[in-house]
């Protein structure tokens, strides 16, 4: 029950990755399908401006806008920034310029990359043209990047129906972020103790409750919990449920029992699987102990100890 020393900080890689599936509205669908067909479409705003990339609602009045216009594939750089160290996912893997480009016939600018040899080769006002991706799927990345262009540009634009065969109606936006997760002082101590097959909690200096797993704070008193307390290994089932649905990638036969377990000395119940007893004989008050498997970082499950059931009054506060 010593005051917790600061243990060596634990760290682990944490990858959050998700392919967001997004549906497109009619204007976005026409624009991205158009890119697939090497056609750039804008939309007429209420004030007469042609917005590229097009939006479905007017940025000033919020009116729904639908009047599509085909515009040029050449344009003028309105501002730029030199990116000498491209990052993962960016359009080019060699140094490039980020540019806002006002395409000929458009009144607003599109963000993309410009492929030029160095910062001296880019300037505001320079003429550029779209370099199309070899394989196009109906996404902003169908524009591989921009490249320098000598021409003056026609500035011509004209109405477009926005109709294409096999229109793109959605995009899959892959997102991946890499983190290094560090669980903090209290949870580090909990995880380290588990590696020695011990369960530790922390006691609140104010209300004296022992929290397992410890999170560093007492949620009732709002103060730091600092006094480490070993709890268990035995405990009492406070409540439980019978699981009848087999989880994907989980090698446990159904039905099985998942329970809240009040470890001896703890003031908060943990949850874990109960085994070693037929599922329909698990009950509130059942006394259980952890079962460790070789190399595991936490108990595989809890099984009955064979002791008499705990009296309801001893755990009713934890139900």
């Amino acid at each position: 029950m010593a005051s917790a020393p600061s243990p060596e900080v634990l760290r682990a890689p944490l990858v959050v990755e998700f392919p967001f599936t997004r549906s497109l509205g009619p204007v976005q669908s026409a624009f991205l399908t158009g890119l697939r067909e090497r056609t750039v479409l804008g939309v007429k705003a209420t004030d007469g401006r042609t917005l590229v990339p097009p939006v479905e609602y007017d940025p000033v009045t919020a009116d729904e806008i639908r009047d599509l216009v085909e515009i040029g594939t050449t344009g003028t750089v309105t501002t730029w920034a030199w990116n000498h160290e491209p990052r993962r996912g960016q359009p080019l893997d060699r140094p490039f310029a980020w540019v806002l480009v006002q395409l000929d016939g458009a009144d607003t600018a599109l963000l993309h990359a410009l492929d030029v040899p160095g910062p001296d080769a880019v300037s505001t006002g320079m003429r550029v043209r779209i370099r199309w991706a070899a394989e196009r799927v109906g996404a902003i990345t169908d524009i591989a990047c921009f490249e320098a262009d000598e021409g003056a540009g026609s500035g011509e634009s004209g109405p477009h129906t926005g109709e294409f065969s096999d229109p793109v109606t959605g995009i899959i936006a892959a997102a991946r972020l890499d983190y290094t997760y560090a669980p903090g002082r209290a949870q580090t101590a909990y995880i380290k103790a588990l590696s020695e097959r011990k369960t530790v909690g922390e006691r609140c200096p104010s209300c004296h409750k022992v929290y397992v797993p410890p999170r560093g704070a007492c949620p009732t008193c709002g103060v730091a919990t600092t006094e480490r307390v070993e709890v268990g290994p035995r405990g009492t089932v406070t409540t439980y449920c019978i699981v009848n649905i087999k989880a994907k990638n989980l090698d446990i036969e159904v039905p099985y029992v998942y329970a809240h377990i009040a470890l001896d000395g703890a003031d908060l119940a943990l949850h874990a699987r109960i085994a070693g007893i037929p599922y329909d004989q698990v009950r509130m008050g059942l006394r259980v102990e952890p079962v460790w498997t070789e190399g595991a970082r936490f108990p595989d499950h809890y099984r009955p100890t064979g002791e008499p059931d705990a009296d309801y009054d001893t755990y009713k506060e934890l139900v």
Partner: protein
Amino acid sequence: MRPVRDIAIVAFGQTDHLRSTDELSEVEMLMPVLHEVLAATGLKTSDIGFTCSGSSDYLAGRAFSFTMALDGVGAWPPISESHVEMDGAWALYEAWTKLLTGEADTALVYSYGKSSPGSVRDVLTRQLDPYYVAPLWPDSVALAALQAQALIDAGDTDEPALAGVAARSRESAAANSHAQLSGSVPQGDYLVRPLRTGDCPPIGDGAAAVILAAGDRARELCERPAWIRGIDHRIEAHSLGVRDLTDSPSSRLAAERAGAFERPVDTAELHAPFTSQEVVLRKALKLGDDVAVNPSGGALAANPMMAAGLIRLGEAAARIHRGESDRAIAHATSGPCLQQNLVAVLEGEPS
């Protein structure tokens, strides 16, 4: 329009802002700051009428990450609580409106962010338009650099002037013990040209907390409350190419609606993470050279995501508490290139 009730910031606390705080979970980082503002007012958590926080799951890499931090405020027995997935400045706005309704007389506002577990430049790309922009992964520095070049092309600034903003901010931060970067900091190499490392904020972890109180309750809790005379927040079109990046009409409109232009201010705490953004904000908010801009060092000295805007409100209030300012504006921003802006006007009563 004058608010229907007088509401003031009566206490402010912040952590030291550090590049990394691996040894602390969010709640462990936050708790000392909560205790600091409670101790300053003598309030207990059970005395607080409303609690509102700001943070972001994308920084933590975990869903509903704010619920863990709630352990630090003593949320049992049940409290009246809310959360914004934004900078704490917007949590303060929500708390202010709650107090205006009369449903609470005191509010605890806090926010925190740990940028150290991930790459904040990558994380911030996920707040961009997912159809046309986010698939290109333009990072926060790149977008700020586009804005800086637009300002240079417009003749509003140049690289030496930007370096001057950086130097002045970090010199001011020498008096701020919580700052992450202070004193003489090299301007460094280009990160994304025209921005050098010196033009960019440090990446760090930190937290802040504020207590708001209404009317006489504020006078009981603080010798010289920082009265909120007005707050407003505005947003601009999300498409960068639709906006004039050299201006911030949303900041100007928010300031006008908050009453900032009715009388001169002596202090401005601006949430300008990049030197070039201070140039934009000074113009939009019509700040003359006689106004002390970011005497704390501003976001160039410490920019804990989700807390840096609330810290601007707190720093401005603390100057009023100390009698160093009579009328200040505080500004917070969110989104790329100053997309969203909040402006508050704070005043101390004549002493």
